[in-house]
């Protein structure tokens, strides 16, 4: 099994797509098939945590981007959540997501693409080998975690729908199910939750569609059955329980920007020098730690993503 660490991966290796494709060819040539490598191999490095009820995922490769930073325990990742569809308390999603049914699931794809339509979860997942990606997650509220996601590159999925030249942005929506999601019975946010990315951000190798956590399928409170992870942006960009994917010409209005455009923008790149109007973003509390950490530009992924924003005023485009 191939394990890559972030320092080994220079941006020149990650960013250009043709080189990325070549890495996949290498993997195939090396005989590591896209078929399952038993989770047991990965599980041996990190024992499955008590209380995990998800199904095992077949992890093929593992990317650790966080060096020797301690991985956040499963309990913390699954009981401290911002998922307002289930309530606004940090413990509400774990408490209230029990009735949510992530299966059967389908995603409606539309907009500027050649292959729109309704895709079942199985259709979505079938061609993509699952990778483990250990990423930092930085919430806009100035706390953070290190999370071992299981997923696959978002770009690989989006390519299958063949977006055309008019597709400048891609927008996503969360499911609307007030019967199973008590928070949606009030207008806490203008449901359904919407988020979006510029196409080059969406195609970046670091952006993934996550379907699991700690080697098993996502708990409901973490965005089952599939959610976005864009690790160089604030966590609210990681739209959960996705049912809609649209390729659009104009920058979509993401929900938090709609709520308060003074405080939440579209790009939402992690940036210690651009404060939230009500609190500083210069430091963060890593869950589990007492002392605060200085926040890193692009959440520590500057090498890999800074070039996406060359020439942009990141204070105006926050």
């Amino acid at each position, binding site marked *: 099994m191939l394990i890559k660490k972030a320092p080994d991966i220079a941006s020149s290796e990650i960013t250009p797509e043709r080189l990325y494709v070549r890495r996949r060819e290498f993997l195939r040539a090396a005989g590591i098939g896209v078929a399952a490598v038993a989770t047991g191999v990965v599980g041996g490095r990190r024992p499955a945590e008590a209380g995990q009820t998800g199904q095992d995922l077949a992890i093929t490769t593992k990317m650790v981007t966080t060096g020797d930073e301690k991985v956040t325990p499963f309990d913390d990742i699954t009981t*401290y959540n911002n998922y307002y569809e289930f309530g606004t308390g*940090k413990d509400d999603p774990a408490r209230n997501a029990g009735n949510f049914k992530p299966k059967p699931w389908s995603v409606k794809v539309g907009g500027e693409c050649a292959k729109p339509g309704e895709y079942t979860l199985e259709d979505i997942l079938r061609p993509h080998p699952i990778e483990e990606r250990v990423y930092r997650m930085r919430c806009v509220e100035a*706390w953070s975690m290190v999370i071992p996601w299981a997923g696959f590159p978002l770009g690989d999925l989006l390519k299958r729908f063949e977006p055309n030249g008019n597709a400048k942005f891609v927008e996503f929506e969360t499911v609307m199910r007030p019967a199973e999601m008590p928070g949606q019975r009030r207008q806490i946010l203008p449901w359904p939750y919407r988020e979006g990315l510029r196409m080059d951000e969406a195609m970046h190798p670091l952006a993934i569609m996550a379907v699991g956590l700690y080697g098993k399928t996502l708990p409901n409170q973490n965005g089952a059955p599939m959610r976005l992870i864009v690790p160089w942006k604030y966590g609210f960009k990681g739209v959960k329980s996705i049912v809609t994917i649209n390729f659009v010409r104009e920058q979509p209005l993401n929900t938090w920007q709609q709520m308060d455009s003074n405080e939440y923008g579209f790009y939402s790149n992690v940036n210690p020098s651009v404060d939230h109007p*009500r609190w500083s973003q210069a*430091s963060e509390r890593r869950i589990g730690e*007492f*002392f*605060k950490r*200085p926040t890193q530009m692009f959440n520590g992924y500057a090498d890999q993503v800074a070039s996406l924003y060359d020439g942009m005023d990141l204070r105006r485009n926050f």
Partner: protein
Amino acid sequence: MVLTRNTIRWVLKPLVFLASLGPVVYLAWGAFTGNLGANPISEITFGTGDWTLRFLAISLAVTPLRKLSGWNDLIRFRRMLGLFAFFYGTLHFVTYLSLDRFLDVIAVRQPDQGSLIGAFLRSIVQDVWMRPFITVGFAAFLAMLPLALTSTAGWIRRLGGRNWQRLHRLVYVAAVCGVVHFWWLVKADVREPLIYAVIFGVLLTFRIAVAFSRRPARRAPSSAAGTDLAQRPS
């Protein structure tokens, strides 16, 4: 059981005292045993803030309850309850200063920026100046401070009953600033601050109504102020 002065002093007040310590004991025990969830410092900050507002509400409810129930002895508990509001407010403030501001400063401070204390003080001043919700939170604390300092019978005598009464109207400032502080810090869900706003609104309306109903008669020393002060705080 006859509700004598001694029963109040030696049984009821100690009970209320111990009960009022409940929240801080719960938070301290929880922090020590790792039972405050993934972000204990956030729990402590929000918990102490919550109980500041609750004790403010409880102490402001004393007089309305007295009027409605006729149980005048309730007034004997008001000072203790008000001081507990100040206690939790101080815990909340100290938590913010030490576990938020100070830890922030030592995380991001550049060595060439002068002393640590200087950076710490600058960080607080900046927050109070630039973040409106911190400004009103700080104002709420400042409003409570003179009330805590002048809470004894000695101060009532020193200031005179009427002046003491006027000073202690700052409790309304503290309550309003506290609710606004809470309201301005939530991101989307204003339900909890709204509940406090309604509670304080009701309590304030009651007090205003009482004050207005006394208007026609000239306010004699034996009005509410006098009656309260006649009870030697025990």
